[in-house]
């Protein structure tokens, strides 16, 4: 029993999802009470606390009726009981949103900002490039690699035609 109570406490703390992370002390949620309750999520489908805990008279009567046989309940009553227990249906809670557009927009914005910062750094901060990166030096490097016949089986030297002194077609 004790581990189960601890586990449910962990779930309650983490089961709020993106909203309702703080389940405050005054947990008597009315019908529209955001940010005071842990809503059910796909990964937390059966919270311990019902969504509405303050029930008016007819809702309490309905709760009493729920204690009897459920076949006596009409369809509208079953829906009302569901709405008392849960905030949203599965279809409602799993609805897609347009949040990804905001996310992608912010990602691209900050990437662009970083690009501007790096450009400024390239102009004002970076030292000059080493001499080995000039074209002449790179050509000398490549010539030396071909002289050494690096990777002659499948690699660089296998692509070079040593008779005609050009790359193989």
């Amino acid at each position, binding site marked *: 029993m004790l581990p189960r109570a601890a586990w449910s406490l962990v779930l309650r703390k983490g089961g709020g999802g993106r909203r309702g992370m703080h389940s405050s002390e005054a947990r008597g949620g009315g019908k529209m009470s955001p940010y005071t309750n842990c809503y059910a999520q796909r990964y937390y489908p059966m919270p311990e606390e019902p969504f509405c805990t303050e029930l008016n008279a007819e809702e309490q009567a309905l709760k009493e009726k729920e204690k009897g046989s459920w076949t006596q309940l009409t369809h509208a009553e079953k829906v009302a009981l569901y709405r008392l227990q849960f905030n949203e249906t599965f279809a409602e809670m799993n609805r897609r949103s347009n949040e990804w557009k905001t996310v992608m927009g912010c990602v691209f914005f900050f990437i662009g900002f970083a690009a501007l910062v790096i450009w400024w750094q390239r102009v004002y901060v970076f030292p000059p490039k080493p001499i080995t990166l000039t074209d002449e030096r790179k050509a000398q490097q490549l010539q*030396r690699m071909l*002289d050494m016949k690096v990777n002659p089986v499948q690699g660089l030297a296998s692509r070079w035609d040593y008779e005609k002194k050009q790359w193989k077609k």
Partner: protein
Amino acid sequence: MAPEVLPKPRMRGLLARRLRNHMAVAFVLSLGVAALYKKAYADFYRNYDVMKDFEEMRKAGIFQSVK
């Protein structure tokens, strides 16, 4: 409820079955790739003359021990 009952799907051993199938496919593919690789090396070394290669490298001037 549907009138006819669907057969019960596989409940256990799913990862084991997946691993077994993937191992078999990977083994066969690796044999094929190894064959290609070995062919490339065999072709290279069939008519390979070490001394001629060495002379070419020596004339190119990359060695420090022989000129």
